[in-house]
């Protein structure tokens, strides 16, 4: 299978603290890949470097075979890299529909148009509604995001990312902060994401990880400890020691 996202010897240190140490990582087309690891393993740091929100100390990042190590965030988004945030990062005071429409307008270049009213761009409204409908949010289109329950806000995050038509989607703890009865809602919707999108999910909820992912990478203190299928990871002694053991002790 083709590799859509790759890191080569990626390093990041803050002074004496190394948070990413020679990370070699590959994400295949259509992957359902999870990145797990204990707190402070450097998972979010890795996502921020992949997105271009944080510059690596050394090493390189390839998106669709092209070196994007120095490319700004907006350029990576245009090349098909999307993300959701660990802490909901939405336009809280805007309607749900606008949250999605703003992303679509960026993708297709409409957002720089100064004259024709936004509401008359019917194509963007229709596409926004299609994404919201697929995630079961159609009835909430006109609701202010701040007035939605948190679980649905997490889905709006995903709807925005989908509107950008990503080839690669980084889901940074999509179920973080969601009450347990709503996390099933998230998982069900993750299962419906288009198969051709390569997804890298970072998640603490092991139940969700093992049900969703087909490959798992375990990161510990900035180093890739092991990578394999969920079965291999579940059997791995070292993973139990550093991670699962800690959680299940």
């Amino acid at each position, binding site marked *: 299978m083709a590799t859509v996202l790759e890191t080569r010897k990626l390093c990041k240190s803050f002074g004496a603290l190394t948070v990413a140490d020679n990370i070699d990582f590959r994400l295949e087309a259509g992957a359902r890949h999870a990145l797990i690891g204990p707190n402070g393993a450097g998972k979010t740091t890795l996502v921020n470097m992949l997105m271009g*929100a944080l510059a690596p100390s050394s090493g390189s990042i390839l998106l669709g075979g092209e070196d994007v190590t120095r490319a700004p965030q907006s350029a990576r988004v245009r090349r098909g890299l999307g993300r959701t945030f660990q802490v909901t*990062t*939405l336009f809280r005071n805007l309607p749900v529909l606008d949250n999605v429409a703003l992303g679509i307008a960026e*993708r297709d270049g409409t*957002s*720089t148009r*100064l004259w024709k009213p*936004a509401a008359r761009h019917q194509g963007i409204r229709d596409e926004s509604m299609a994404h919201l409908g697929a995630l079961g949010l159609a009835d909430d289109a006109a609701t202010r995001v701040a007035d939605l329950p948190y679980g649905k806000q997490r889905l709006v995050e995903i709807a*925005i990312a989908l509107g950008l038509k990503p080839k690669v989607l980084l889901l940074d703890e999509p179920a973080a902060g969601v009450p347990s009865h709503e996390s099933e809602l998230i998982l069900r919707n993750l299962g419906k994401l288009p198969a051709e999108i390569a997804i890298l999910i970072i998640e603490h909820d092991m139940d969700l990880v093992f049900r969703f992912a087909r490959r798992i990478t375990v990161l510990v203190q900035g180093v890739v400890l092991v990578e394999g299928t969920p079965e291999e990871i579940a059997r791995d002694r070292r993973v139990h020691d550093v991670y699962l053991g800690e959680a299940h002790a």
Partner: protein
Amino acid sequence: MSGYTADPRIRWTEWLPWLAAIGFFFLMPGYLSLGARILIFILFALSLDLILGYAGIITLGHSAFFGLGAYTAGALGAHTAISDPLLQLVAAAALSALLGLATGAVILRTRALTLLMLTLAITAILLEIANKWTSLTGGADGLSGVKVGEVLGMFRFDLYGKTAFFYCLAILFIGWYVVRRIVYSPYGAMLTGIRENASRMQAIGAPVYWRLVVIYAISATMAGIAGALLTQVNQFVGLNVLGLEPSGDILVMLILGGVGRLYGAFIGPVVYLIAQDYLAKQYPEYWYLGIGVLLIVVVLFARGGILGVLDRWLPFLRRASSARASAR
């Protein structure tokens, strides 16, 4: 108020300011020069609302563009043969746009207090230039003898200010229409996105910095036109168009009316300038105290300005006057 769910049609209440202006012309013929001044400051406030209310750019230096426009029209009228008012406006607009692009490109990489100080520094520098370059600007004495020709070669500026009033009203109307189009456009929606959450805009692929530079230059252009109008109406330019004071005044007017609401920029200058006119006659030494008290009352008890209060008290205005539409 803007965006993909806002109904862009013009509501009947949005015509009220224009009816009021025409009514004012016939009912208060003795106050037309005050009226023209109010119209000019509405245009200035509108330009500020575009960057402050919609894009969330905080500034204490918007007078830089107002002042540059004022001195451009003044210098053309006083030192050259270019006395056509529209030509002077175009020149003022062009120079203000250039200054907006140049300074915006430098300062809009910064945020919050740094940005505030930089905007203030720029208008302070222009003030000092205007003060020292007496051959061009007249320095502290001001620039008098500004020649302004007939509007469209037909309408001479008269003693009663009738031409001035309608001229300013026409320019304001165009300015309002342009701002309204921008606010309701995808660009306006995108600016609201930047104001609400700039890092999210980055994450969906928007080059936020460039988007801000463009709207800053557009706003600067409008402020420059407003400044040029003030020169043409007064046929005089003084140093008081530059520096902290006019920047602060316009900010107070906009906050008084309501920020990010389009029509706050109309109500603020009307209340502020009429109060100023009245108080300055009654209490020439203490009139600023009255303005201060007014501002404190608004900030403490009327968040969202006068329009914000109307919004809460008159539910039917909620739909109409603030142009906040619900999803269709």
